């Protein structure tokens, strides 16, 4: 018994080390002076630390500007995507109408359509709208709800007792009033989960901006780091510092809100 405990702990520990090695390598490289990046054998622990790498990348590229660009997309997508998915999810969860279960199945099955099948028609569509090199192609589709988030909302709303709806209806709330004043305030956990996922998705999206944005001043963070890679191919200390900066928001959100994130997946009961 003791031996199996020991085995478990050492496996867990070894796995954790394996996961941390790439992160360790990225972070330590990001603070090495350029002369210490290409040494042989490589330095596992930096012998010299140079924090200026971080200020250097802010001088090389207007990262704050790119951060703002990305946040514009994030904010609009966050508001539009969360609200519309919630509204649709409520319709599927609590309102009875002919064909609702068929439509719901249709919606779920669209999750299996590969994104790459649709990028060309979307590109043609948005080009005809005159939306190329704007953020609209990256924002507007979110306002029509996204199947996975609709699914999460629906699962959550279904668990809310019908009595709340009835009580609100008796008090004279319309369907939308009930949704807005009764259901939304008690559904903050699932809103939180969807918001976190949306943030991570938009923040890390590369293909979307790559297709639609072509002017330098409109670049998002992901495009900016990719451009940095093209310009400073071998300056790995700078590339790693920029990478760390790009990952910090996701890491912070994860550490502060992980319980909520993880609960959200479990509560919504994705069991196949």
């Amino acid at each position, binding site marked *: 018994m003791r031996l199996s405990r020991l085995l478990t702990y050492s496996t867990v520990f070894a796995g954790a080390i394996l996961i941390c090695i*790439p992160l360790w390598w990225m972070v330590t490289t990001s603070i090495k002076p350029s002369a210490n990046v290409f040494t042989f054998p490589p330095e596992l622990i930096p012998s010299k630390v140079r924090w200026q790498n971080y200020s250097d990348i802010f001088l090389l590229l207007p990262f704050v500007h790119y951060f703002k660009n990305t946040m514009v997309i994030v904010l609009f997508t966050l508001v539009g995507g969360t609200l519309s998915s919630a509204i649709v999810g409520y319709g599927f969860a609590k*309102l009875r109408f002919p064909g609702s279960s068929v439509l719901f199945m249709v919606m779920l099955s669209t999750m299996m359509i590969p994104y790459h099948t649709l990028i060309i028609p979307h590109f043609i569509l948005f080009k005809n709208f005159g939306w190329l090199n704007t953020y609209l192609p990256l924002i507007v589709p979110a306002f029509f709800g996204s199947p996975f988030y609709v699914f999460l909302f629906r699962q959550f709303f279904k668990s809310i007792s019908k009595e709340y709806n009835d009580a609100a209806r008796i008090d004279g709330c319309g369907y939308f009033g009930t949704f807005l004043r009764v259901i939304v305030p008690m559904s903050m956990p699932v809103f939180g989960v969807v918001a976190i996922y949306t943030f991570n998705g938009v923040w890390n999206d590369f293909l979307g901006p790559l297709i639609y944005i072509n002017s330098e001043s409109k670049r998002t963070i992901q495009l900016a780091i990719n451009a940095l890679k093209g310009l400073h191919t071998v300056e790995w200390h700078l590339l790693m510092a920029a990478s760390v900066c790009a990952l910090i928001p996701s890491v912070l959100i994860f550490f502060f809100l992980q319980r909520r994130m993880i609960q959200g997946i479990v509560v919504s009961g994705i069991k*196949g």
Partner: protein
Amino acid sequence: MLKMNRREAIAGYLFISPWIIGFLVFVLFSIGMAFYVSLTKWDMISDKVWVGFGNYSAMLGESLFWQALKVTLLYAIFSVPLGVAVGFMIALLLNQRLRGLSFWRTVYYLPAVLSGVAVSLMWMWVLNPNFGVINLMLSYIGINGPGWFTDPAWALPSLVLMSLWGAGAGMVIYLAGLQGIPTELYESAQIDGAGPLRKFWNITVPMVSPVLFFNVIMGTIGSFQTFTEAYVVTNGGPKNATLLYSLYLYTNAFKYFKMGYASALAWVLFLIILLLTLLLFWSSKKWVHYTD
């Protein structure tokens, strides 16, 4: 009463109307348009030229198409089952009473929230043949590490390795599945004299098989959409060893502006995913166990 229901039905349609509109425009109409464009030759500047199924037959004679298909299938065949297996093992490991459990779960889940160009760059540097940390560590145990992304034979395995780093993503769902197994099942198996291995294969695996199935489906679709890694790290090379289907499609559409040919690729991708999904659903009858 009837009137009430009717009002509710109207409200229902209004509530789901954003999705309906989005579905009609961004899915149904778009797929149709992709099909129409796939029957033409078009660079988005001059007029479309009708070629019928010419793009499809051209595809079959194009060696790069077969290369892209081969690379993507190999990537899926290795990354999906390995990813599910590793994720499931992590969940089994962290479903026990351990000290610092929430700390371990945080560490194992962390890679799942990290993605994008930064992670691709990180792996490029981690797997650098001469100055990367992996080959450094391999040298400690006397192994001369491979060239990873620079070696045609190792480039695709390197992408698989990268994807396995995030295998902890499935852990949360597996844990929920594991915790949903009634303990009575294990107790009665205990009485019947079943050992730990038997309990695992005859109770644990069947009980979580719907969750495993869900992850296999989503993982397969996801593997066909892997793009950033291949674009940033290798751009399909060396010698097209990492020319993933999505990258091949992107290049044809947005580098060469062969919109007709790329749309045909998009449609074939759609059909492949459909076929694979149906195949997986069909196979699931044999191995997925539903309690209700």
